[in-house]
C-alpha cells in the first residue's frame, strides 16, 4: 500500500484551510454592488393572505425592492417541485399542492415565505421587512401527523383529507396468511420524532444577473449544484441551463437539508434581474434555519411481527403515517416510501412483509431527507420490534437476531431490495465480544449498587445507499437518474485535477478522492486537486447524499482513471517504441516487458502534450478523460451496534455508558475519515434518541423549539468514547468494493439507545427523545406499582 493510497489514514487535506478560518463559504463571498435580502415570513400556521401593503416599507431609505407572490406570478416563475412521483395503492398520483416561491393567497406554516425585501444593508432589509403590512385571515391548523387526516384544517385544495398518498408495498395476502399461522405476534406503536437539521453553516445564497451576457449566477449552500441548476431551469423556468451558473463553494454541513431547492435561493437569483442585475445576498439567521430548513423524520407507526414456534420470523406488517409538512419538498415523497419501506426486512429472513404508508400534510415546515432519510425510520421499526419480540419470547436478543439473520447472498427481500453481500453473524460476534456482553450482568449489578438502572440494547441495521441505479429508481417514480460523472485532467507536469459531480460539505473528498488517484497513478496526493461545486467547471453531477460519493462518485473517477491509464499506455508505447500490450503500469511507472525501458507517469503526461513524440493522427494529443457511472445496484452497509445506558432513577437522566459499533462498509479508503463519519452519525442518533425533539404547539401552531434555548443538540460531553470496529465483505457492484458510511451511525443508533433505555427501565416503550422528564414520567407507574 502506498502511504497516501487506498486504506491509509491520511490527514484531511482541507482541514488546515477550515481550521484556520480560510474556508470560502457563500457568506464569505461579496460581489460588487451587492444588496441584502430579508424575508417576510408567516407568523401563522395557516391563514389566507388578504392583502400585502409594502408602501411604508418601500419608503425606508436604502430599500431597493420588495417582491411578493404577485410579482412571482406576473413573471411566471414556476413553483417549487417534488421530483419523485408516488402513486397511491388505488393508482392515483400523489396530491402535490402548489408551492410558489413567494406565497400566493395563503400561508401554510409558521415561517412560510411571504415577501422578499432587498436593501442596501441587511439591517435595512430587516427593518423594512418588519414594516411590510400583511393582513391575514387565520384558518384552522393542524401540526400533528396523527391528527391531520381528521382535522378541520384543509391545507391544500387537492388533498381534502390532507393525505398526499396512501402507498403500499409487499404482498398483503401472503402476509395475512403468515400471521394466521403464526405462533406469536408482537405489536408495537412508535413515534419517530421530528428533527431539525442544524447544519453548522446556515443556508445562504447570492443571486446575480448579468445585464450584458444575460446570464444568471447563483452562489448557494447546496449539496448538488447541478440539480439546483436543472430544477431552476426546467421547472422554475428562470433561464436555460447554459444561461445559469450555480456555484456551491465550501459548504458547512448539510445532512440532507441542503439537497433541496428552496424558495429563498430561487427568489434571490430571480429578483436580481428586477433590480438591474445587482447581486442579492441572503444568509439565514439561525432562527430562520429552525423555521424554514426542511425538517426530518416525523413518523407515527404501528408494526406487528409474527413468529413461529421456533422463534423464526414469518411475517411483518407496518402502517406508517409520515408527515410531509405544509408542502412537498424536493425529495419528500421518496423518503417514507422507497427509502423506508424497502428496508423493513432488516438483516432478517422475513418471508412476507406488507407495509402501508400515508403521507400527510401538516401546518409545519416541509419534511424531507435528513441523514439516513427513511432508513433510520425503518431501522427504528425493525430493531425495536425485533428486540421487543425477543423479550416477549424470552429469547436472548442476540440469539433471536442470529436465528433470523440472512446468511446466503444474493438475498431477495419481499420489499424490492436484493442484498448482494454481507456477513451479519460476523459483525454480531465481534460486537458481542467488544461490548463484553457476557459480563453485562455484573455491570448491571454494579450500577444498581450506585442506585442506577443499567440497560443494554442492540441494533443490527442494514441500509441501502450508493443512491442509486437509475433504471431501478426511474421505474419507481424518480424524476432523475442518480448516476455520477467525473473528469480527470492530467496536466503536462503530471499533476492531476479531478472534476467531480459529488459535492463535499464536510465529508473530506479533497482527501479521499486524492487517495484514489494517488493509489492508481502513483501521484503524490498533494499533486492532486479536487474541483467540485461549480456548474461552469464540472460537466455534470448529481451531488452528495445517500452515502453515494464513494460508491458512485469515486467509481466514476475510477472509470475515468481507467481511460487515462489506457491512453497513457498508448503514449508510453509510442514514445518507448513498444507494442501497447507490452507496456505495464505499476507504482507510477510505465515499463516495457522484457526490457529496462521505463518512463515515469509525469514523463508520459508531458509526452502526451508534446505531440511530436508520437503520430497525432493515431493518438490524440492531451491526457484528459471523463466518465459517467450508473450503479447497477444499491450498496448495503450493515452492522451491529450495542449501546449500554445508565438511568438515574431519581432524576430520569440517561447516560450512555458504553457504545460499540461494528460496521461493514466493504473496502475503506481512509479509516480515519470513516470513523469520523461513524462518530458523527452515532452522535446524531443519540441526539434523536435522548435530546432532540422538534415541538410545534398544538394550540397556536408555533414552533416551540425555535432556538438552542429549547432545542437540545447533543454535546461532546453527552457521549462516551465510542468503540468502533469493522468487518468487510467487499461490495460486488462497484470495482472499488465500497459501500457507504455517511449515514450508518445515524441509522443504527436510535434503536440501540432506545432498546437499552427500555431494557434499563423494564418497559416496552419509552418515546424519543427520552429526555429526563420523559424517562421520569415513564417510570411513575412502575414506582406506584412498587409502593
Amino acid at each position, binding site marked *: 500500500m502506498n502511504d497516501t493510497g487506498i486504506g491509509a489514514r491520511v490527514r484531511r487535506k482541507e482541514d488546515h484551510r477550515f481550521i484556520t478560518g480560510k474556508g470560502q463559504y457563500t457568506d464569505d463571498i461579496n460581489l460588487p454592488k451587492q444588496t441584502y435580502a430579508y424575508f417576510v415570513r408567516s407568523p401563522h400556521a395557516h391563514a389566507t393572505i388578504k392583502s400585502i401593503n409594502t408602501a411604508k416599507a418601500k419608503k425606508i431609505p436604502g430599500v431597493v425592492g420588495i417582491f411578493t407572490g404577485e410579482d412571482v406570478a406576473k413573471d411566471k416563475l414556476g413553483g417549487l417541485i417534488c421530483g419523485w412521483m408516488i402513486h397511491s395503492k388505488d393508482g392515483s398520483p400523489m396530491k402535490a399542492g402548489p408551492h410558489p416561491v413567494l406565497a400566493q393567497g395563503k400561508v401554510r406554516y409558521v415561517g412560510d415565505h411571504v415577501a422578499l425585501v432587498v436593501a442596501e444593508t441587511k*439591517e435595512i432589509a430587516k427593518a423594512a421587512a418588519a414594516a411590510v403590512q400583511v393582513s391575514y385571515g387565520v384558518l384552522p391548523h393542524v401540526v400533528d401527523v396523527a391528527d391531520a387526516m381528521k382535522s378541520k384544517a384543509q391545507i391544500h385544495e387537492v388533498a381534502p383529507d390532507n393525505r398526499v398518498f396512501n402507498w403500499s408495498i409487499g404482498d398483503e395476502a401472503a402476509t395475512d396468511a403468515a400471521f394466521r399461522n403464526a405462533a406469536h405476534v408482537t405489536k408495537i406503536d412508535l413515534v419517530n420524532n421530528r428533527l431539525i437539521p442544524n447544519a453548522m453553516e446556515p443556508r445562504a445564497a447570492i443571486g446575480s444577473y448579468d445585464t450584458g451576457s444575460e446570464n444568471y449566477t447563483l452562489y448557494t449552500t447546496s449539496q448538488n449544484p447541478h440539480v439546483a441548476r436543472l430544477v431552476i431551469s426546467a421547472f422554475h423556468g428562470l433561464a436555460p441551463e447554459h444561461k445559469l451558473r450555480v456555484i456551491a463553494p465550501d459548504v458547512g454541513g448539510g445532512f440532507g437539508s441542503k439537497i433541496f431547492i428552496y424558495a429563498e435561493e430561487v427568489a434571490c437569483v430571480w429578483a436580481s434581474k428586477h433590480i438591474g442585475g445587482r447581486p442579492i445576498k441572503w444568509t439565514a439567521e439561525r432562527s430562520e434555519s429552525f423555521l424554514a430548513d426542511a425538517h426530518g423524520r416525523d413518523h407515527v407507526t404501528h408494526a406487528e411481527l409474527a413468529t413461529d414456534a421456533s422463534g423464526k420470523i414469518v411475517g411483518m406488517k407496518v402502517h406508517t403515517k409520515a408527515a410531509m409538512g405544509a408542502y412537498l419538498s424536493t425529495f419528500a415523497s421518496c423518503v417514507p416510501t422507497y427509502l423506508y419501506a424497502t428496508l423493513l426486512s432488516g438483516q432478517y429472513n422475513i418471508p412476507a412483509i406488507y407495509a402501508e404508508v400515508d403521507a400527510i400534510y401538516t401546518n409545519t415546515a416541509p419534511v424531507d431527507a435528513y441523514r439516513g432519510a427513511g432508513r433510520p425510520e425503518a431501522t427504528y421499526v425493525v430493531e425495536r420490534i425485533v428486540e421487543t419480540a425477543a423479550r416477549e419470547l424470552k429469547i436472548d436478543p442476540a440469539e433471536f437476531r442470529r436465528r433470523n439473520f440472512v446468511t446466503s447472498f444474493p438475498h431477495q427481500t419481499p420489499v424490492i431490495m436484493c442484498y448482494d453481500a454481507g456477513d451479519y453473524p460476523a459483525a454480531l460476534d465481534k460486537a458481542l465480544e467488544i461490548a463484553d456482553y457476557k459480563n453485562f450482568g455484573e455491570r448491571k449489578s454494579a450500577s444498581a449498587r450506585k442506585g442506577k438502572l443499567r440497560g443494554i440494547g442492540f441494533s443490527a441495521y442494514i441500509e441501502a445507499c450508493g443512491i442509486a441505479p437509475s433504471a431501478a429508481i426511474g421505474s419507481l417514480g424518480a424524476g432523475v437518474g442518480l448516476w455520477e460523472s467525473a473528469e480527470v485532467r492530467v496536466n503536462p507536469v503530471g499533476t492531476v485535477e479531478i472534476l467531480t459531480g459529488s459535492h463535499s460539505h464536510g465529508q473530506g473528498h479533497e482527501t479521499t478522492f486524492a487517495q484514489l488517484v494517488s493509489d492508481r497513478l502513483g501521484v503524490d496526493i498533494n499533486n492532486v486537486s479536487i474541483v467540485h461545486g461549480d456548474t461552469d467547471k464540472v460537466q455534470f453531477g448529481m451531488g452528495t447524499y445517500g452515502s453515494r460519493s464513494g460508491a458512485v462518485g469515486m467509481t466514476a473517477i475510477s472509470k475515468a482513471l481507467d481511460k487515462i491509464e489506457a491512453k497513457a499506455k498508448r503514449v508510453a508505447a509510442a514514445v518507448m517504441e513498444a507494442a501497447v500490450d507490452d507496456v505495464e503500469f505499476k507504482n507510477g511507472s510505465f515499463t516495457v516487458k522484457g526490457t529496462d525501458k521505463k518512463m515515469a507517469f509525469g514523463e508520459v503526461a508531458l509526452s502526451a502534450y508534446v505531440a511530436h513524440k508520437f503520430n497525432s493522427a493515431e493518438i490524440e494529443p492531451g491526457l484528459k478523460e471523463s466518465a459517467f457511472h450508473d450503479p447497477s445496484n444499491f450498496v448495503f452497509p450493515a452492522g451491529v451496534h450495542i449501546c449500554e445506558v445508565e438511568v438515574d432513577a*431519581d*432524576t*430520569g437522566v440517561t447516560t450512555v455508558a458504553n457504545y460499540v459499533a461494528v460496521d461493514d462498509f466493504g473496502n475503506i479508503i481512509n479509516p480515519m475519515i470513516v470513523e469520523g463519519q461513524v462518530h458523527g452519525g452515532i452522535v446524531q442518533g443519540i441526539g434523536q434518541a435522548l*435530546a432532540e425533539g422538534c*415541538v410545534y404547539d398544538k394550540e397556536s401552531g408555533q414552533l*416551540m*423549539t425555535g432556538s*438552542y*434555548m*429549547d*432545542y*437540545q443538540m447533543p454535546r461532546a460531553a453527552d457521549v462516551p468514547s465510542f468503540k468502533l470496529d469493522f468487518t468487510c465483505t467487499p461490495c460486488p457492484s462497484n470495482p472499488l468494493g465500497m459501500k457507504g458510511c455517511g449515514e450508518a451511525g445515524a441509522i443504527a443508533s436510535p434503536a440501540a439507545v432506545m432498546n437499552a433505555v427500555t431494557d434499563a427501565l423494564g418497559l416496552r416503550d419509552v418515546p424519543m427523545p427520552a*429526555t*429526563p*422528564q420523559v424517562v*421520569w*414520567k415513564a417510570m411513575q407507574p412502575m414506582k406506584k406499582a412498587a409502593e
Partner: protein
Amino acid sequence: MENFNYVRPAKVADAVKAMKKAKDGKYLAGGHTLLPTLKQGLAAPTDIVDLSGLKNAGVKVGAKSVTIGAGTTHAEVAGSKDLRKAIPGLAKLAGGIGDPHVRHRGTIGGSLANNDPAADYPAAALGLGATIHTSDRKIPAEKYFTGMFSTALKGSEIVTAVEFPVPKKSGYAKFPNPASLYAMVGVFVAQLADGSVRVAVTGAGPGVFRAPELEAALAKNFSAKALDGIAVKAKGLNSDMHASAEYRAHLITVMAKRAVEAAK
C-alpha cells in the same frame, strides 16, 4: 439592533447621572443577557451606560463575610481560591453557570440585577442571606428579589457589590435545562454561622424562593436522609415543555439532598 448613545463612566455617581439623563437607558455589564435582547429587537434603549469603567471586580474574603464586586465575572468567582475555602457552594455555583464564554463575560451584578427566574446566583443570595450593595443603600436578599425578572432596584440604582455571610456549610446542586443549561431546578442549602438552615430554590418557580418544609427538616438534622419522603408541593411551580410542575417539585427534593451531600 437599533442605534443608541454609549457612555462608559469611571464613577458610580457619573453612571447614575448618565442614566438619569437618558430617555430610555440601560446599564451594560457583561452583556450576556442584554446584548441578545438588543439583537433580537426585544429591547431598544436610547442610551447604553457601560459599567465596565467602574472597575469594581474582585472577591474580598473576610472572617465573617465575603464581598464580591458587581463587575466580577462568574469565572473570577469560580476561580477564587479564598472563596472556595470560605463558601465552596458559591464558588461551585459560579463555575456551573452557562459555558466558558458566558462565565468569562457575565457578571454577578448583571445576573442579580436581571433576576432571571432560572439564574443561579439568586439561589446563593437568598440561601445565604446576602446583602446587595447599591449606589444608594444596602438591601437584604429577602427584600431584593420581588418576582420574575424584577428586583427592588429603582430607576437608576446600580448594584455595586454583594456581601455574603460565611456559613458553616453550604452546597449547591443544579439540574440544568437540557437545552439551555440554565437552572431547571437549582437548590442552594446553607447552615449559617448561627446554626440556622436555609434552602433556596431557583429555576422551579416564577422567582427564587425558600423551601420551609425542607428547611425545617434540615434544621433538625442537617443530612440528606432528613429529606427522605419530604415532598415539595407542585402548585405554583413553573411548567413548560422541559419540565412539568410535578417533575420540578420532585427534583427540588432530589437536588436538595444532593446539595446537602455536597455541602462543605
